[in-house]
């Protein structure tokens, strides 16, 4: 390989690394600034509540319907697998643990990133493109306090609630399939679930996961929107980056959190 080509490749790798580190630094500073402006933003609670509505309430349909279907599939697959070992009656605890500890927080977070995260990024990006953010700054209103922090906290509040609803709907879906259609005993289904799932650590671990996912998704969504190039292509790219970045972050964080939670349990 000629020396010129090697130099070119090295230059490109170097530049890409430099850009990534610089962007990571900007994101860290941005996070610190959002936290700094949060008390002022949270004082005006109606701003955050409005974002809870847009991020949370408007995500209810997709979360509840998805939860129901995931629970129904889990009921079918779970019963089939468990029944091979003569443990079909354990469907309740199997479904409950899977949803509360893993599927509820993770799938709800992936759906939240796709629906609410992308909407937050697109909205902030478009505000930037149409100079609304610049107008706010010229009016001596800090967009970090007025636009970014409420959306960030709105996402964090919404995420655990949506994950909980996802799990509830999943359990209900599994109940319909397992008890109503397949014929698992009703009392055994609920009794096993009640006896086998502890609030600490099962439910609390799920809550901790969904809060961490909420922080990650909200931060990525507001950052990508704020950092978007003020063009149609820029907003489109930023929205894609939010969905891809937030989804990968959720899956990676899930692994890390699960490792720590299992270590704590053993």
């Amino acid at each position, binding site marked *: 390989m000629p020396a010129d080509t090697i130099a070119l490749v090295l230059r490109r790798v170097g530049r890409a690394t430099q850009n990534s580190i610089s962007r990571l630094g900007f994101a860290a500073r941005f996070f610190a600034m959002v936290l700094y402006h949060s008390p002022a933003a949270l004082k005006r609670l109606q701003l955050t509540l409005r974002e809870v509505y847009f991020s949370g309430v408007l995500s209810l349909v997709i979360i509840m319907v998805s939860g129901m279907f995931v629970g129904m599939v889990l009921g079918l697959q779970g019963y089939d697998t468990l029944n091979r070992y003569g443990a079909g009656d354990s469907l309740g605890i199997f479904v409950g643990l899977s949803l509360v500890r893993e599927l509820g927080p993770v799938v709800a977070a992936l759906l939240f990133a796709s629906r609410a995260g992308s909407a937050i990024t697109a909205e902030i990006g478009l*505000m930037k493109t149409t100079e609304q953010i610049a107008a706010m700054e010229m009016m001596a209103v800090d967009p970090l306090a007025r636009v970014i922090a409420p959306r960030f906290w709105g996402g964090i509040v919404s995420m655990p609630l949506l994950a909980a609803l996802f799990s509830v709907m999943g359990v209900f879906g599994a109940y319909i399939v397992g008890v109503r259609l397949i014929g698992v005993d009703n009392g055994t289904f609920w009794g096993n679930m009640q006896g086998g799932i502890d609030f600490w650590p099962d439910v609390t671990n799920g809550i901790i996961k969904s809060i961490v996912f909420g922080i990650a998704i909200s931060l990525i969504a507001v950052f990508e929107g704020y950092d978007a190039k003020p063009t149609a292509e820029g907003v489109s790219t930023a929205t894609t980056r939010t969905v891809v970045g937030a989804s990968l972050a959720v899956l990676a964080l899930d692994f890390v959190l699960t490792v720590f939670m299992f270590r704590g349990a053993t």
Partner: protein
Amino acid sequence: MPDARPPLAAPTCPTEIAVELRDVSFGYDKRRPVLSGIDMVIPRGKVVAIMGGSGCGKTTILRLIGGALRPQAGSVVVAGQDVRELDRDALFALRRRIGMLFQFGALFTDLSVFENVAFPIREHTELPEELVHDLVLMKLNAVGLRGARQLAPSELSGGMARRVALARAIALDPMLVMYDEPFAGLDPISLGVVGQLIRKLNDALGITSVVVTHDIYESLKIVDYIYFVSAGRIVAKGTPAEVRASSDPFVRQFVDGAPDGPVPFHYPANAIEQEFASAG
């Protein structure tokens, strides 16, 4: 008649100067300066236009005045304060005394016309709701859109959006209002309305106006003084009467709308013979 106004004398008393740029240079990167050695004085109570072709650095001057950008050299003094030396709090305090009209209005799309105009009042004051209501209606009445207060920005025409943005810009009774291309994309009637509003509000409210535009005809009707900017430098300046009578090649090209002149028609390129020869 705008030309009947007394010619703009260079002000000597500092308190009479709303904005002053002294030997200002700026560039987004060091190799390509956007502005070089800009000297500009904007006296209190006057309407001053900054004119020039697209991409010549006009809007950058507004951003420097508003403190959104910091000059690499020179100073930008607004209301006696050097913008470059202000910290964030002081800059925001200064901006509360400045209104800005963006090119396409930059209205908040999730708020109604009323709420857009009320926005700066609600953000910076704790006035009772009744007073906010009356203030907003007064501002909307000044731009002729009191009846449109319940409309959403998406329901407004370009001219109406510009007028709502103007009402919002004067909501806190600023000492300075900056207009970024206020005439762009407007039909002749809206253009005349916006032009007259700029002049009348300036005189009625005793504010100072800086209008960045490339609309020479509308500007000559309403402004007191014009700076011509080309390639980041001030190339001409004068009152509307002086501009009309000017023989300066740049001013003439601008006033006459000539396609070629000091501002060339062709983007710099190799000689055409060379290009075709290489293609062959």
